[in-house]
């Protein structure tokens, strides 16, 4: 079965990732996770949903509702926050390289 890959699909898959927030020493079962967008790879910058960080807020979630608040620094969350990001194979890694536009065909590297 071929893959329909327009440029939007390629960019989307390349930029997509999952983000996991947990407490130091906690197992995966106790973590929160969501999706994200890789804005830059090196250095790595990711934009994701903020909801997974609220259980870690030092001052509780009440600070969120102040109408004009547009941002809070990262240290608004407690020190035991651990964040991990995971993404799929990138186009450059052999596993990730699939020739777009000619599904079903590949060009093995010589």
């Amino acid at each position, binding site marked *: 079965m071929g893959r329909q890959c327009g440029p*939007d699909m390629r960019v989307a898959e390349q930029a997509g990732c999952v983000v996991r927030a947990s407490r130091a020493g906690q197992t995966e079962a106790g973590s929160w996770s969501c999706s994200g967008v890789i804005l830059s790879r090196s250095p790595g910058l990711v934009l994701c949903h903020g*909801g997974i960080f609220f259980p870690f807020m030092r001052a509780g979630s009440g600070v969120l509702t102040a109408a004009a608040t547009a941002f809070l620094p990262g240290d608004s969350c407690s020190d035991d926050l651990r964040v991990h990001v*995971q993404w799929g194979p990138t186009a450059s890694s052999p596993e990730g390289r699939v020739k777009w536009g000619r599904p079903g065909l590949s060009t093995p590297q010589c």
Partner: protein
Amino acid sequence: AGLEPVQPARHHGRPLKPQHPAELLLLLSCPAFRAHFGRLFGREAAEQWRFASAARYSEVSEDEEEEEDQLRALSWFALLRVQPDPEEEEDKHETALAVAPLGTVPKGAPLLACGSPFGAFCPDIFLNTVSRGVLSNATGPLLLTDARCLPGTEGGGVFAVRPPGALVALVAAPLCWKSGEWVGLTVLCAAAPLLRIAHNALGLLRTSAASLASLLPPEVGTRWGLPLRDPGPTWAAAAVLVECGTIWGSGVVVAPRLVVTCRHVAPREASRVLVRPTTPKNAKIWGHVVFATQETSPYDISVVSLEEDLEGVPMPVPTEHFHEGEAVSVVGFGVFGQACGPSVTSGILSAVVQVDDTPVMLQTTCAVHGGSSGGPLFSCSGDLLGIVASNTRDNNTGAIYPHLNFSIPITVLQPALQQYSQAGDLRGLQELDHTTEPVRVVWRLQRPQAETPQSKL
């Protein structure tokens, strides 16, 4: 629950990258998004709306306080710095990410959502699952799409097809219910304002973070030389809001002074009706009902004659043919009514029900909500296919199915509308009150009676 990957994680059959540690730089939120969210979903409407969120792994919270927290959190996003991986090669094939400036993607434009249902719960299966839809509505930086998104996709990117791959928004609330009805729309926060806030905020943080501001993706258009404002499908402007007393619904302009809507929106002949076109903004024109079918007619139709021309509204071209499976769109004021302009939802023409080889009912997979009745059903080229009459309710459970809905084919109405529009002759419209029994049976969603066997005597 309970799935445990026992082999190295694989993504669609290819190994995932290992998890990279990251640092939380910023929590950010767009005040304008929150204001629009409060206006659309807050105050007196609040008790009607429910939003799904990515709960912790397997726990589902029920208590109200956490639900309030969830609502607060819904409009917040996070900027992370990912620690470099010395083994990661520089990716020469990567396409530079660009961001669509706010307002450049028009309603009805195709969108691609990319997220991971259930977050990191099962990434080898669900990482970067894509879903297609259209931009259904927009009010400031708060956008809605009918692309299906599931819990865990919060924060996932939503990309434009034109310009290809431009980041338009991030998922804020994947699923929402209104009064127990699944709405089938996903709430998005536009990316451009969020990244501007991130850019400004980074400048205020520690110097080591400030330099990251230059890495944020640029807004497309200036550099790519593309037109910044794509007007989008002109035909959508033929949809109008119709108010008759306390009842409101949708309608479609079929002639400069003629609007068609549903009888249950404007039920009584001669009653006054207020019509609000989409453009110009805040315009409103009075009219009155010149014809409404009887309650007994299966065709739930009302025709309104306006007191003045509707300037600048494109007249839709009525189709003469229907093609099951073709891409279609519904434009209507369902869900939000006057709170924001009409919503566009997309789908396909799933069935054309015929009696004696004549189409008498159309079904689509578009999301149709209360308030969309009377609105237009368009083909992808903008031809008018029909008038939306209803979605589906399961009378046993009371559940509503927005994606199974019924429209009256325009071919049923067109000759009569023309007769009235050109000569003021209502006789064609009055024929709608005298349909055959098989047509009634179809619209009562009954099974057609089997042929009564003729007596051989």
